[in-house]
């Protein structure tokens, strides 16, 4: 069933203003179409029958705010989603990164960490893991807890295993985890090189320089102005000749920075040109 239409357009704006002023989370440049659906969805699942009820709870219950931020942002992710993308990383990008003494990778908007773990597996299989660091960031502390635990639903493993094989994986995928009744725990060596931390792409600045930034299906929730600012942030955080990887239907084409980047074949991976 679709989310109901409880919250009106102007009410969404009040809510964004409240949350920003009271708690510092700025959703004002999020794409409205998606954001409005999320607000209506949260009314449905948390049983608010009016906008006033939702607003009252947010204003008066700081604990609820955590849940609000978690539900308002989309945390749907997979391991090795778009296997061809991961195959391109394996075959074209990792050999390039292998020439660096220390490889720094930023998975921006990593949610519950599935792509960071996928990346760790790729690096292991390319024998580069020992000299790599993977930074996983998200604005949401609770999803990072899940990432830190490395525990994922068992029912997903069939799909992840298929994705893994399609990405060029040669091992038995189940070697990477221990199964329990309904969940699996990934091998703890996969998080040895994983640094998880909160970071808000809207308000936080660059914190390191990287040779590869992976940010997939995060920018789709931002409007074009915010996308442009985040591209700048990535540009400031990327070394010359570094790579920026986006989601299957995201593009840097609409950005001013487009001219400084070359697309890698037909992948949604762009290489920063050497200049300045």
């Amino acid at each position, binding site marked *: 069933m679709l989310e109901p239409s409880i919250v009106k357009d102007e009410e969404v704006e009040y809510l964004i203003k409240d949350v920003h002023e009271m708690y510092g989370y700025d959703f004002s440049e999020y794409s409205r*179409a998606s954001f409005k659906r999320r607000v209506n969805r949260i009314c449905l699942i948390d049983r608010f029958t009016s906008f006033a009820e939702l607003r009252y709870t947010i204003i008066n219950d700081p604990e609820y705010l955590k849940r609000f931020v978690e539900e308002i942002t989309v945390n749907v992710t997979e391991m090795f989603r778009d296997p061809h993308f991961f195959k391109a990383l394996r075959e074209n990008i990792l050999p390039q990164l292998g020439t660096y003494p220390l490889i720094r990778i930023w998975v921006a908007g990593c949610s519950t960490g599935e792509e960071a773990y996928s990346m760790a597996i790729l690096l292991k299989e390319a024998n580069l893991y020992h000299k790599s660091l993977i930074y996983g960031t998200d604005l949401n502390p609770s999803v990072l807890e899940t990432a830190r635990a490395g525990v994922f639903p068992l029912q997903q493993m069939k799909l992840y295993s298929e994705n893994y094989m399609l990405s060029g994986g040669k091992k038995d995928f189940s070697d990477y985890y221990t199964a329990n009744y309904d969940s699996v725990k990934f091998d703890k060596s996969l998080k040895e090189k994983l640094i998880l931390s909160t970071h808000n792409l809207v308000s936080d600045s660059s914190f390191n320089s990287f040779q590869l930034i992976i940010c997939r299906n995060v920018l789709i929730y931002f409007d074009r102005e915010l996308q442009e600012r985040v591209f700048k942030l990535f540009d400031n955080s990327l070394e010359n000749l570094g790579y920026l990887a986006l989601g299957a239907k995201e593009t840097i084409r609409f950005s001013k920075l487009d001219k400084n980047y070359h697309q890698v074949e037909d992948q949604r991976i762009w290489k920063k040109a050497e200049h300045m």
Partner: protein
Amino acid sequence: METKETNTELVVIGGSAGSLQVILGMLKKLKAKLSFPIVLVVHRKAYSNNILQTLLQQFIAIEVVEIDDKTEIQNNKVYVVPADYHLLFENKKLMSLDFSEKMNYSRPSIDVTFKSAAEIYGKNVVGVLLSGANADGVEGLSYIKKNKGQVWIQDPETAEVDYMPRHAVQEIAYDQLIKPDNLADFINQL
């Protein structure tokens, strides 16, 4: 003063199993210049890349575009919603993609796009629901109807898989029952 005239600004077509032949047949007979865009929401496997776009382009001179996030929408183009994303309209100029939870076991979900089209285009949208084996699309059509848009449904008798259109015909006061042969004619007359 309210005018009765409606000015079609968007045709959005949703289909699942059995809809592809209807869409291909329609494209072949579309006139050369459309004064509105057509958006296609078709259920399919998650990793089917640009296959649908490439296939459809072979049958029509009008440009067929697989939608990237924040694609500007233009008249006289056919837009295909990519596999494994929902499509939303920000306004009449701009489309966004969304990777939130599946709806009716589907991503893209026809309901999600129909509802968004109803909110943005109001009476100036035509929503078309074709053959399919799933209830996705019916609720979305009800939003289009509520916002005074036009609702066309494939005659269940002509549908390869009639569950979706039969469900819709029972629940929605539709404006037009269409057949695979005359869908293009109706669109050409808009």
